[in-house]
């Protein structure tokens, strides 16, 4: 590690410590030294909790401190932290999968056919201008309070992002490279498989990192509006009890899930796009 990198990491730790310290003691300290009117009310631990309180809530929700033991604690609550996390992750995964799959497929088809893309362009523009979140109550009405409505929501949110990127990526394929492949004996389908798809993949991947976040947003919003289980449901329940610590626990779990998934996508991207200079590791 270079000296520069070490100093960057040292400063990051300082910033983190200041943030956590201010969060833990800042409000109480400000109340002691500042006039009452100057202390921002929304920073009251009643609203934002405290790192120590969040940690305690995490241990309790995660069944680490339950006197009955870990498994008995899990069984007592069918939307405990771990079940909620798995349910949210699972719905997110399936939504991401169908949204990405359909987005790539239709993007590829319309990107390759000027005729079809002209036919469908106004419909896609119209559908795309609907805020996806506005559809959630409708989707819950159609598909119920269970997992399916969350999968549908996540998929719809993901679909358009991936569709537009795949479409643009397919349009941007070098025509001479396609001609070269044809002259080397490639059929229309082989051109698609060996030239168009690999070439468009860079564009597709540019959309996958946001698509992961969008899938998570889709599922969580679905769970806010109506769900039986999941991290979003956990937050809504905690809100009903005005329990900021539990809400913060769910938010942190989502943050960590989001970070891990982004790393996974970047790893896959780095491997599949290793021919591009920005992913060069050597």
């Amino acid at each position, binding site marked *: 590690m270079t000296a520069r990198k070490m100093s960057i990491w040292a400063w990051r730790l300082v910033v983190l410590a200041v943030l956590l310290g201010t969060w833990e003691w800042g409000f109480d300290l400000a109340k002691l030294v500042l006039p009452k009117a100057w202390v921002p009310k929304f920073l009251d631990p009643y609203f934002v909790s405290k790192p120590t309180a969040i940690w305690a809530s995490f241990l309790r929700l995660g069944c680490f401190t339950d006197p009955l033991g870990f498994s008995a604690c899990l069984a007592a609550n069918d939307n405990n932290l771990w079940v909620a996390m798995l349910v949210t992750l699972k719905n997110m995964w399936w939504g991401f999968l169908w949204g990405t799959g359909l987005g790539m497929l239709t993007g590829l088809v319309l990107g390759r056919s000027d005729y079809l893309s002209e036919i469908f362009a106004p419909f896609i523009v119209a559908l795309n201008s609907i805020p996806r979140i506005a559809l959630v109550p409708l989707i819950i009405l159609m598909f119920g309070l269970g997992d399916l409505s969350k999968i549908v929501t996540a998929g719809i949110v993901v679909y358009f992002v991936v569709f537009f990127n795949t479409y643009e990526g397919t349009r941007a394929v*070098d025509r*001479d*490279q396609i*001609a*070269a*492949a*044809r*002259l*080397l*004996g*490639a059929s229309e389908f*082989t051109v698609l498989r*060996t*030239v168009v798809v*690999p*070439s468009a*993949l860079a564009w597709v991947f540019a959309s996958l990192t946001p698509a992961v976040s969008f899938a998570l947003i889709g599922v969580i919003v679905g769970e806010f509006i109506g769900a039986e289980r999941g991290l979003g449901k956990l937050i809504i329940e905690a809100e009903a009890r005005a329990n900021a610590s539990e809400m913060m626990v769910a938010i942190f779990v989502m943050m960590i899930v989001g970070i891990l998934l982004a790393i996974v996508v970047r790893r896959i991207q780095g491997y599949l*796009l*290793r*021919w*591009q*200079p920005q992913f060069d590791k050597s």
Partner: protein
Amino acid sequence: MSEVLPMTAMTATAAPADRITVRNLDKRFRGASGDVVAVDNVSFTVRQGEFVALLGPSGCGKSTILNMVAGLLERSGGGVAIDADPVVHGAINRKVGYVFQRDTVFPWRTVEANIGYGLEIAGDSKTARAAKVQRAIETAGLSGFGRSFPRTLSGGMRQRVALMRTLILEPEILLMDEPFGALDTHTKLEMHKTLLEIWERERQTVLFVTHDLGEALTLASRIILLSARPGRLKEDFEVPFARPRDPVALRESAEFGRLYSHIWHSLGEEFRRTKAD
């Protein structure tokens, strides 16, 4: 300038067969102010084993002719045949190999995978491909770069990959559209050396488009000279230099210099006309 008869008509002998036949070929492009004639009534033939350079100033329609021969571009009039078969726009002839001026190497494939592309999609197994690909890599002087991705290579090396990607399929007829046009002089000479070595061994039928007189004289057995836009056949003559040729030594020879300056007069006139347009 009087209309020059295509030399093929005068010198045609029974021996080598006609591989490429171009008859009264026309190409018009639709422009903002009416049609633009790019190619006007061009006829010539290329016989088995000939290395023909299609030489002309920029914008004379020589690449347009080549693309119509390859079936990549629709004709406005006239006919093109490979052997006895008329060329159909959009249909690919497996006897024909084509090398582009622009870099068309697939950046997501390694050098090996690029060169083996045609064999791979034809269904050859990995083991069947490996030996051929290895030989092509050695011929191209790319040993040690088989596993590299194209972005790590220079422009000249990438064009070697493109050349071998075409040659590995053993095309009987090779169409080349200013393949070394984007390279610097030194790299160009290196490429000439490689191409001459391959061609003098295998004697494919070659139609090579270029605007570089020196390049045409170095490589070709025959030069077809086109006029500036619209492209018309201007002259058709044999290049008398003995083979095997060494591109550097050839360029330094006195006979090269004489022929170069002789042709330069007619080509120079064309260049002035292009500029005046």
